[in-house]
């Protein structure tokens, strides 16, 4: 069993089956679909509350998603811990700033990579909340509940993502 947990990669099908079961378990035990982007709203709301005071709770969006350390926020530190454990056990944990594929195309400038990542992150944050969910919330949890809006969102995530990837890296042949 230890050997299995220490493998650097599992079959994507095994991982997918486990995630499907995990989403079902979360719906039963927590009455929530697993999603990640709401957690960022919670962290942002808490940060604004610390720097600007309680009046930010009057913002319409924070009334809908009140800033709090709750289930949706805790998903995020959980994922960080889980991914750390997985990579640490398998010996693949390692600090880096520029991913190899990015470096091949755009060079090893850390400033350029961070600039792109911040810009991408901003679009991702706006888009996720605009669409009402992300790859896990819409793409997996929503799709398996046969939500039309979720399946439509997930398709658009990939249409936009594929377009941007091919603008940056060209069309692979």
């Amino acid at each position: 069993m230890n050997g299995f947990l220490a493998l650097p990669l599992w079959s994507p099908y095994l991982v997918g089956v486990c995630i499907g079961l995990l989403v079902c378990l979360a719906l039963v035990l927590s009455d929530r679909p697993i999603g990640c982007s709401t957690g960022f709203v919670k962290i942002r709301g808490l940060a604004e509350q610390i720097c600007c005071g309680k009046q930010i709770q009057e913002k319409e969006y924070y009334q809908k998603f009140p800033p709090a350390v709750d289930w949706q926020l805790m998903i995020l530190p959980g994922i960080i811990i889980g991914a750390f454990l997985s990579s640490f056990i398998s010996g693949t944990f390692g600090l880096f700033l520029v991913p190899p594929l990015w470096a091949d195309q755009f060079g090893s400038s850390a400033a350029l990579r961070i600039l792109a990542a911040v810009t991408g992150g901003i679009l991702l944050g706006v888009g996720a909340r605009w669409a009402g969910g992300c790859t896990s919330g819409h793409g997996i949890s929503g799709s398996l509940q046969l939500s039309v809006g979720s399946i439509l969102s997930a398709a658009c995530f990939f249409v936009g993502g594929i377009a941007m990837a091919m603008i940056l890296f060209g069309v692979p042949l």
Partner: protein
Amino acid sequence: MNFSQLHKNKKAQVVLGLCFGIVFGFLLQKGGATSYDVIMGQLLLTDFTVFKIMASAVAVGLVGFFLLNHAGYARRHVKAGAIGSNVVGGLIFGLGFGLLGYCPGTVAGAVGQGALDALFGGFVGLLIGVGIFARVYPSLHRTLLTYGTIKKETVHELLGLPEWLVVIGGCIGIVAFLYLLEVAGF
């Protein structure tokens, strides 16, 4: 067994959220989906790992959720879709997805395996982005976000078919597509 007491227990839910996150992050990392190169490989259509994970999760979840829902253990959480929300937001998300190379869940997983671009770039950008959305939300939510609302919330309502048929059909379709992907060498 009734879990409604557990759903209301805020402290227990904080712990459960952390636990679900840990298992989710562990699985995403083991699947390779927290790696920039793997995600960009998917968006460049050269590496189908991310699709394989998502599609098999949906196939299992379709059946699992259908059974749990009918047995009264799980509620359906579905909102009416809208072109102005799901398509416009989805495309903005997609452009960010391709530029950053992580999504909101995998960016956290990437931080856990040591990706500093995910921490100082993606995480920071996401926190700025959701703040921008919170600011513009009041002017969007009664206008663009509800533009082109789709009245049928679920696929079976939209198609006018029994739910079980859509679940079985969806599962068979996903498995057949995954099989074809493997046969084609992806």
